[in-house]
Structures are given as C-alpha cells and as structure tokens.
C-alpha cells in the first residue's frame, strides 16, 4: 500500500501507467476536456471545413454576377443575380416547385396516415415486424430503380394503360391526359406522372415519423374520450389528430425538402418545364452561370429554414 502511494505521486493513489497508451489514458482521465477535444476534432474538421466551408463558398458566389458578354464571373458584390430570380421564367420555376412540394406533402400525409395508424395501434408481433420491414425495404431500395419501375409503369405501352384498357376505362385515362397543365402525351411525360412518382418515393419518410408519433399517444386517452361520449370521429379529430400532428409535420419536413431539391425525378418522368433542382443543374452545367445556380439553391435553403422554424414552433422535432 505504501509503495503504491509513494510511486503514485502526489495526487493519485495508483501508480502512473507506463507506455504511450497508459499516459494517454491517464491524461484523458485527468482532463476530460482533452478527451472531448480529441473526439470532436476529426468530425468537426470534416463537417466544418468540407461541408460548411463549401456551403459558405457557394453562398458567397450567389452575390457575384456573370458578365453577359464574356461569360466570366464578375467578382463584385451585387444583388443583381437575386433580382434575376424574380424574372417571370425563373419565378415560375420557383412557384411550380413549391406548389408541387406542397401537393406531394399533402398526398403523402393522406396515404401515410392509415398505414402508420394501423402499424401503431393494431399491428402486433409478426405483423408489426412485417409493417416495419414493409416500410423500410422500399425506403432503402435503390432510388433510381424505383424511378425506373415507374417509368415502366407509366409508359404509354406500360402496365397502367393496359389495366385501364382491360377495365374498359381507357376513356378515363385519355380524359385525364387531355386535361390542361397536368396532362400530356402519356403519364410518363406529364406533371401528374411526376407527382405520383414524388409521392411514391418520399412516402416512407412520412410514414415513419407519423407512426412514431401515433405510438406515443397513450391508449387510455382514446378510451377516456370514448367514455366521455365522443364518437370515434370526434375522438379522431379532437384527440388523435392533434397528438399525431407533430409527427406529420416532421414527415412533411422530409417530403417538402426532398421534393424541393430533387432534379432527377422531373428530368426522367415529367414535362420539359423545369423545377428548381433542374434549374440549378442546368445553370451550373451547360449554362456555366454558377452565381445564378448558387442563388437558385439559396431558395430551398430559405424556404426550408422558414419551414423548420414553423415546425419547431409546432414541436415537430420531438417526434423525429
């Protein structure tokens, strides 16, 4: 005992550890802040420099402009690029994308709710696992393969046309396709097609948080509501829905944000009119106008910041 105390120095009752790792281990124990620093530095350097650095560089470029004659970037501070966003063509692109994102979010919420509700309230044991995998597998399946599947389905010679034909409902499909704005030559080149694929691809992102929120609603609240004489409809509207709303809002963050930024789906399935993502891609690629592309990409950031701020007020982050 005395030997240990003697060799351990003034502050510790145990001997100091030998070797590099021993010294490190002792140092971390004595100075927890040092350990924290060592743990946090690599991820913060990576995310801070590579990611945030790139984002800031991008944002700065949006304050430059492009010289119309030389096609070179003019490195002087200006808001002219942002003013370009308000030109009729560009503003149309923004409105079109936001409207699509809003519609996709509403549709995804409507389709997701019954699945989430059943999985949270009624499914048990094997069925619960089945529902969970039933949502996870499509969520994690290849994004492009899913789009490809819809290209097969929506093609003019594809399965959907065939089903409508077999049901003698071809007139209905043709009627939908002749509608202005949403129609087109076939579903695969119409807004309606783009909309369906968006809803399909982002649906799992809506189901999971909605289900998480519903699972946290205590069962006795529902029973209490019924005991107090509420009809199932009233219980749903005044008890269940308000409690599930944060989950739905959390899901809508995903569906809204993902739709705003996607440029592959409208490029493969949809009409030739652009969405924000396509505009960013075209401006930085073929047009070589990086400032305008940067300004365009600020639009989803600003919209999402507003959206997140509202969602935070609704308490959506507790359901993530």
């Amino acid at each position, binding site marked *: 005992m005395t030997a240990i105390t003697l060799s351990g120095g003034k502050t510790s009752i145990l001997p100091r550890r030998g070797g590099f790792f021993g010294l490190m*281990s002792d140092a971390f124990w004595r100075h927890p802040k040092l350990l924290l620093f060592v743990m946090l530095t690599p*991820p913060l350097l990576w995310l801070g420099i590579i990611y945030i650095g790139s984002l800031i560089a991008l944002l700065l470029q949006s304050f430059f402009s492009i010289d119309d004659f030389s096609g070179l970037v003019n490195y002087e501070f200006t808001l002219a690029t942002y003013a370009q966003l308000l030109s009729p063509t560009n503003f149309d692109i923004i409105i079109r994308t936001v409207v699509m994102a809003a519609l996709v979010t509403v549709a995804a919420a409507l389709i997701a709710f019954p699945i989430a509700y059943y999985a949270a309230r009624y499914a048990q044991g094997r069925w619960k696992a089945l529902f969970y995998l039933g949502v996870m597998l499509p969520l994690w399946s290849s994004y492009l393969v899913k789009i490809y599947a819809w290209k097969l389905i929506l093609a003019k010679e594809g*399965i959907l046309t065939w089903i409508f034909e077999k049901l003698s409902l071809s007139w209905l499909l043709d009627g939908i396709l002749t509608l202005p704005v949403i129609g087109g030559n076939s579903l695969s080149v119409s807004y309606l097609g783009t909309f369906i694929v968006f809803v399909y691809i982002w649906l799992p992102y809506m189901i999971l948080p909605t289900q998480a929120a519903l699972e946290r609603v205590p069962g006795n609240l529902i029973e209490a509501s019924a005991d107090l004489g509420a009809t199932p409809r009233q219980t749903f509207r005044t008890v269940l829905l308000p409690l599930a709303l944060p989950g739905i809002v959390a899901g809508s963050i995903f569906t809204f944000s993902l739709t705003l930024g996607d440029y592959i789906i409208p490029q493969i399935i949809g009409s030739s009119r652009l969405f924000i993502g396509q505009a960013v891609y075209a401006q930085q690629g073929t047009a070589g106008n990086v400032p305008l592309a940067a300004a365009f*990409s600020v639009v989803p950031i600003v919209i999402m910041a507003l959206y997140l701020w509202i969602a935070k007020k609704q308490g959506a982050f507790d359901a993530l």
Partner: protein
Amino acid sequence: MRSDQKTSPLPLKIAAAGGLLFLHLPILLIFVYAFTTEEKSYQWPPPGLTLQWFPIAWNRPDVWSALGLSVQVAVIATAIALVLGTLCAAAVSQTKFFGREAISLLVILPIALPGIITGIALRSAFSLFDIPFSVWTIVLGHATFCVVVVYNNAVARFRRTSGSLIEASMDLGADGFQTFRHVILPNIGTALLAGGMLAFALSFDEVIVTTFTGGQQSTLPIWMLEELIRPRQRPVTNVVAMAVVLVTFLPILAAYYLTRDGDQIAGAGK
C-alpha cells in the same frame, strides 16, 4: 392486452394494405421485366419470357467497372463515416458541453438539406481550389452524408448503454483504451455494424451528389441514370435493376435483425 384493441375497422385495413401494396408492387414489376423478350419498348404484358439477358448483362464490362467503383467508394466512405460518426456520438452522448445541440444539427444538415445543394457546394469548392475529380472527390461527398446514419445508430445505443459499466471497468483497473476495447465496443458493436451497413447502402445508391463530384467516372447509379435518360439496351438495365434490388435488400434485412431487440425496447419505453 384488451381484446377490443385488436379489431380494426375494415376501411382502415383496406387503406393500410393498399398503401403497402402501392409501396411494393412497382418494385416487384422490375422482376417481371428482367425476363421479358421485348427489347425496344416497355411493353406490358411481356410478349415472352427469356433468360437470355442474364448472361448478356453478366458479360458487360461497363456494368462491372461501375459496380467496382461503387463498392470501392462505399467501402471507403463507410469506413470514414464509422470513425467520425462514432466519435461524434460518443462526445455528444457521454458528455455535456457548450454547443452540443449545434453539433447534432451540423451532423444532420448534410442529409436535411437537399442533396443538390451539397453537390453543387462541393463542386464549386473543388473548382475553386482546382481539385481534379477522382474517386476521392466522390468519397468526400459520400462520407459527409453517411456520418449521420452511423451517428444516429451509435447515439441511440450509447443512450441505452449504462454508464456504470464504464465506471466499473475503470474501477477494476482497466485503462481508457482497454475499457473501449472490452466494454464499450462490445456494447455498441451491433449498432455500429447496422449503421455501417446503412451507410454502405446509402453511399451505394447515391446519385445526386455524385453527379456533381464524379467527373467522368461512373458509379453504378450514374450508369443507371445514363440508361434512364438515354436508354441504350433496355433489357440489360432491367437485369441490373433487379440485381440492385436483391443486393440492397440483404444489408437492410441484416441491419434490421441486428437492431431489432433494442428497437422494441426503445419503442416500449416511449
């Protein structure tokens, strides 16, 4: 367990089943198309069934090189994400410090913002510093958004791991590294494996960021995207699509079984 909880209204059943079918039928359709004899269009029903496209797809060098690059990128990105994500999760869950919330936000940001913004930001940074496109520029982008999956899995497990285990290990004389090796790692191992597999799947499937950071090289999703925009040989695409579905299902199922028990506990606790 109350008996009346198990009966559900019929419309709800139909809506839930319909929703699940809506999620799964399109993927199943891919499997049928892989066998079709039709080459020029997406005709339904298939005029005939054949196995001839499987050897043709198998012998395509462009598919194999794209697959090779995808695997290479996914492995490196997953390795980086495992290290960074675990470090971050350990720091955030085991200690309290100023700016902890900000770090959670920073980790989630690459996946919360649309991929196109990550992509174009990285691309403009590369061109700013004259960094040529290579495997490493792709890895850089992928690792950035893979960190969040590892982080989420690790944080959830750290929260369930009792701190007294670590204290006991220290009391029994283990140094920090021994504690990590013999106590912490076995506890978080399956969570890391699950997170790693999901990160691999995420990277393997990524296309939006890769179009900006990839240059001339094509990963498997980029190859697929080119086939979607300008179809050259549709049957080969069908077969590759089916193979991709089958291959991605395996890590998802494995990740599910690895984290299953814990998730049920976590769900019950809520």
